[in-house]
């Protein structure tokens, strides 16, 4: 995960935690919390992206996974499939946040 992505996601997660008004936790716990949330969020984003794949692109995607393609190749394939990753990511983040905060 790049620094930019890391920073933005962490800021998003931290902001979410701030809104959650969690009781004071020590730094180590907080870091772990952020990490867990980040992983959960990433899982959901991945799920949403896969769901957004057109049916005729599923097989190709499977093949890429089978042949253990690298990140760039996979991401390029996603983009070429017409999946609006940014919109999906944004929607997933907002939905994730809303659910997490019990909104």
């Amino acid at each position, binding site marked *: *995960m*790049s620094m*930019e*992505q890391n*920073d*933005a*996601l962490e*800021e*998003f997660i931290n*902001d*979410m935690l701030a*809104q959650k008004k969690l009781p004071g936790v020590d730094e180590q716990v907080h870091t772990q919390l952020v990490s867990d949330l980040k992983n959960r969020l*990433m*899982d959901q*984003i*991945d*799920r949403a*992206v*896969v*769901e957004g794949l057109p*049916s005729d692109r*599923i097989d190709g*995607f*499977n093949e890429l*996974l*089978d042949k*253990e*393609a*690298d*990140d760039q190749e*996979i*991401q390029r394939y*996603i*983009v070429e499939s017409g999946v609006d*990753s*940014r919109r*999906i*990511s*944004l*929607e997933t*983040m*907002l*939905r994730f*946040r*809303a*659910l997490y905060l019990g*909104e």
Partner: protein
Amino acid sequence: MSEQPISPPTQQDVLAALTAELEAGPPDDERRRRIQREIGIIVGNTRLSEIVSNDPTGVWAGEEDDANEHQTSNADSSSADQRAQDAHIPMAERRQAAAPVTSRRYRRATAPITTIGTTPQVARVETRSQDGPQIPDEISDDELRIVAAQVNGPTQGEQPQEQQIAEELSDDELRISAAQVNGPTQGTQPLVHEAAGSARDEDSAEEASDVAEDGTDEEDGVPPRLILSFIDQSQDAEDAARLAAEARLTGELNSGGRFRRMIRNAWKGSIAREFYILKYKRQASEQILSSQDIHVHETADRAGRANAQLATIARFESVYDEAVHTDAGERKEMIADDSEFGRGIKDLLRQYVEGGIANPEALEEEKNRLLSRLAENGDMDLLGAGTVRIDNLLGIAASVKGMVEHGQSIDDVLAGMSIYTGEARSNVRTEVDYGRVDRMLEKLQRSKVGSLVGPETLGLAAAAALIATRAGRGSLLRASGVMLIPGVNGAVFGAIRENKRVKEERTQHSREMAQGKVAEGGRRREQMDQTRYETVAAADLSGSLGQLFDAEDALSTPEQVQAAYELLSSVEARIRLSDQNSIDLISYSEVTRIEEERLALDIARARAKVMLQPHLGNLPDEYRSRLGIESSDTVDGAVGRYTSILDTINADVSSKDAAFSKLKRRRVATAAATGFVTSELLSLGTQEGVAFADSSYDGLLENMVTDGDPSEGGRQTVLQGLANPGENVPGERVVAPVSTHENYTLADTPGSVDVSSTHSMSVNEDGTVGFRDTQGAVVIDNLAVNDDGTLPQTTLDALNANDINVIDKGSFVTDETTTTRTVPTNEFVDNHKADTTHIRRELWYDNDTAAPRFEKNELGLSWGGPDNSGVGDDGVVVMSVASMTEDGSYHGLDYTNWQQDASRGELKLAVSASKDTQSDVFMLSVRPDGTIEVPKDSPAAHFFENNDGQMTFNGAYAEVVELNGDTGEHTSVRPLATLVGENSVDTIEDTVVEQTTVFVPNYEINIPTTEIVAAREVESIPMPPIIPRRSLERVLPAQKISPAGLDPFTYAYGGGRSLEDMRKWVVADPSRLRTRRQVETEDGQLRWVENDGNPVERNVTNERNMLNSYLEGQFTAEPQYRQYIQNIADALGPMGQKCRVSVNIPAWMEEKNLRNLLSQYLDQRDKDGNPLDPGLFEVNIIVNRKEGTAPDGSVGVINQFIDQYVASHNGQRPNVRFVDVEFKEEIATVGYARKVLTDAALLRSLSRTDQDQPLYIESEDADLTNVDKRVIANLISKLDRNPHLDAVHGIEGRMPEVIKDNDLLVMRRNAWEVFLLMARQKKFRNPNSGSWNAFANRTITGGWNTGYSAEAYAMIGGYENLRAGEDLTIGERISMVRGDGNYPNLETIGTVPTRTESSPRRFINEIIRNKSAYDGFGEGPDEQRIRDMPLTDLMSEISDFARISDDNRATFAGEADMFYGWCLSASPTRQDAREMVKRVMRSAGYREGDYTFSGDKLIVTNWDNVTTNLNAYRTQFDRAQRPNRKLIIGGWKRPDLRTTVMT
């Protein structure tokens, strides 16, 4: 009934057999025809019953075929309940179809499925011969019963003990049974399995028998070929778990009351839907894994599930490529003999045969060990994930063992065995999206891929998300925007969720429909159905293929070839598109029959290709040319050229997709709008609520309620912010000038300005000034300033114009200058005015210095200091009055003591500078000791002079004075002593301070600020939308829905009326329609009203009008009818004025029972048990017979009864009338007899002159054996109290003292009564429901124990001229007339507790004859027989069933299953039926736990309770003095209809 039928081979068995047959090689013509015939039967969607009935060989029926024997017929006569059973004949037939035929010997078909350990086993052995028929072997009845029990579940005809055995066997026992069945231990014959259907005639049977002798085909000696299959169903298991989860959730969302459904839908169906789906899926997966059965959630029908597994195995064993759908992801691979797996498996089999592996359990263990080892070695691609896997290893092992034991070489057997692995896709094709996604995500997680979304994209999305979420907090300026955020979020979330859900629902609906389920109805399903791709039933396709290819002249003309080609192409296209696109273009009848029907279709396709191949060249030339089909083409190649079907399908797909898009858009838009509103309202509402609890949070509502002031600087809700915009507008808001100022001098002028400290003043070169803010920005500039420091008016105006407040604070200032100069004494005194005291001397204390010298204190002032020099220290003037005496100062009566004055400070030295200024003196203090010092700097000092050491006084007077008050203008003094000075001082050098006054300009300049004020924080609380949405309605198992075209109104008895018939009857005369309905009053009560809204009421005027109208109509239509009825009326005599009930009884051949009937009927009682007023009712009998028929003795019996009654009642005549009528043949029906008698009653009623109460008609039969004493009272009471009721029906009893002695009879009658009571609960009574049973789910009218109002009778046009069914028609017509024209209103026919009994003879005969009780009612030899024969004799004919015994237990088992069938036919779901039948069974004497359910079958497992209860019932009945005539065997409590929940 001595034959105990057993189950025939299943359809699946037949299919498997045919598969083997087809695999046997190129068929010769004869075999082909036979195959065609057999396949045609199977694939043509023909039920097993049809197979049985159509089977020309009789093979299926066995040697002692009794296929037509019904064990569960329902029966009887003119009684309504008997006819109700007739209504169930379709059900009985349906059950019969699946039930039993009797056969002693069956061809062995496919071995049973058993469940061993965790893997279901399917044993199947295929025989292959080059050109001969397949050779079946034989199994015993015992073997087959066990097989049937396992595969089909126990059937009605099975031996009860064996049923129990089959049901109660443990897995281990079953496994052993399977091995036994497949192995040779059960018989001496080696097990050579083949298709059961291959031997269709006696020759074939014999041939089969012969071959079975040595296990080889007699003609070629080729040993059977074994096929061992390992099929992975992991993917199906995954899909099945998801489907089960969806189905469970859908069911939950559709259950419960409206409120609960709403809450559930909001939570489970919306917010937490995914959570529950995953939870249920997990639970479903666990069950699937533990059962190793992918259909475990679909149906409780174990046999059905076993068949589905068998079908899967069979499909993979097929040699046809068509059977494995690679497009759908299926695969099938042959395992090489020399592969590790191949060697391993064959080695296991070898060990098993040779005893190295002792038993099936060990073999199973070894197999699992082998598979585990292969998995470790990475061979999972071959075997699949193995989550759920089915195989037929144990069955094959048993077969191998048997073959070796019968002389075959193990090496030969194993060499001839093929091993396949494969992966199945057993479900329909509509893809389970989540399963697919889950699978890919699992794969993704296993991979090294970090994220599917690039870091930049993710970063941008996160930043945008952050901005979006933070936008919810801020100032009021954004409040309006903030306010919209929850709504917008809600709309977005709602839209996203709905978009997803609606797609899921389409998938779910398509899948369920393809699985043969039927929607219960409802708008959601209807909408989804409009977007569902058109499907064609697999069975229909198979049938169509069969029809085209099975015809005798099939493919004999180019047109036929073209039709066959196009049909095959269509089928191929549908299958290909379904498989490739994961959609369903083919449907199936049931979920557990998918595999079976799919295989049948695959075989039909394959067969069609085989047959079509040589005829491709016979296609019409032009057609062939147009499509480009060459004679040398393969069929597969040729069918691909037929594209018009693709166009058709694609057009359908496109239009349905478009319809779906439209539906989705509409749903999504609605969800978005709803989401917006609900989120908005929730957000605002929640905020206001939170504000109450949070002191630092101001809410509008809070402030309105508490009238409190907003907290300073605290957060506030959106509404509060919007309501107080002035406080909260951020940005450049003008605020008041600060109160602190900085002073600036106006250069070169005496003026200055005080400028607000938030600003500064600057002076320009031209002398003008300007003001700037702290940032240096000019507020105003170039303001002129006058030379004197004042601001000119222009400047003031300019400042004012800029909202700068100017306050003129200019003032006059006094300036002092000090100069020293010589001034005259009086001026000196003026200059030191402040040091002088203006005095007025009031008196002088006497000073008498004249002779004689008599001085008091008047000379008491002297120089002080040394030597009275008057010079003190430092040269100060010192004086003293110490020489004065206390009493030396007086004047007249005034007196003072200088010391006291001095002590009080009231004694002074007043120094007058000159005589001219002696009123203004310099006042010096006199000390208490009398000393006076004149300080040097005192102005008074100027008037003393030190002349060489002696002080002199040059002023005018130095007086010692007593202060005597101050008037404000002067100080009064009284001199005590005076030193008269030289008065020589004319001028004095004096230092003078001179004052000059000037004006100093000063302005306060107050400049307001335009600072950006941080407004009070306005917060928004985004809330998730609450979008109430209805989920898909439930689906019902296909078998619960009436077959297409079957009108639920139709039943067999009485002429087969249909709902459509009834509609037409109403439409034929619209004036008939007299709709009544219930409306809710303001107090929430339901009230019956007429269609025009007027309340329903019953009155004599309406009745008489209706009767008159009806009769006139009858008489007009048939003029001679008037006289006919009048004659009958005259014969009966006039009706009593207060008669309320006319009891009308047709009597034909009933002379034996009339006395009993009349004597009971006349003994009517009121509700208190007292004799009923005989004037309230009359009994009319029409003794009728067909013209030419000899009369019986009925008239004589009646006359005799009347005479005896008169004699025994003091001459009182009973209110019994009769008429003896002979009908012509065409009208000699019970319907017509009732009609003329009733019409005559109406005419007689109209002839009454003083009728004041409505008239009711009680319809009875003449064969009643026990008449309730409250028939009349109950009827009058019920109808009088319920004016909306048109008719009532009582309970039809059947002489319990007779029927109690026969277990079968008493249980059946009892069960029927209880069943009807249950089925007539209101919740089942919706005639608009597809599962409605027109007979059971309503209160019917009958020929007896039925009452109705005379008005209702006239309203519907009276009785019909029917031989049977006229009684039912009364109720049907009433319901239709009271309905809306389309559906009946079932609520105007009620019940009464009247229990009247009739002879059970028809029901006894029903058991004797095994036919419907009312079959042939009123005619035929049986009719006369049962009338003539004593009941005891009739009962003796069914004595086989007097008690439940080992010999007849199967019949009772079938009887209990029949009860279940009734309930299934009258309830919408299987669960409802089970709840219903539980009560029926309990009332019949069973207890829960005495029986189990298996799908649509009920299986009795314990007979102890029912036997005990039946005996106890008989004993109690016999012992009781007044036995309870209700049929209560096992104890039964009437269900509380308000609380009974059977969902």
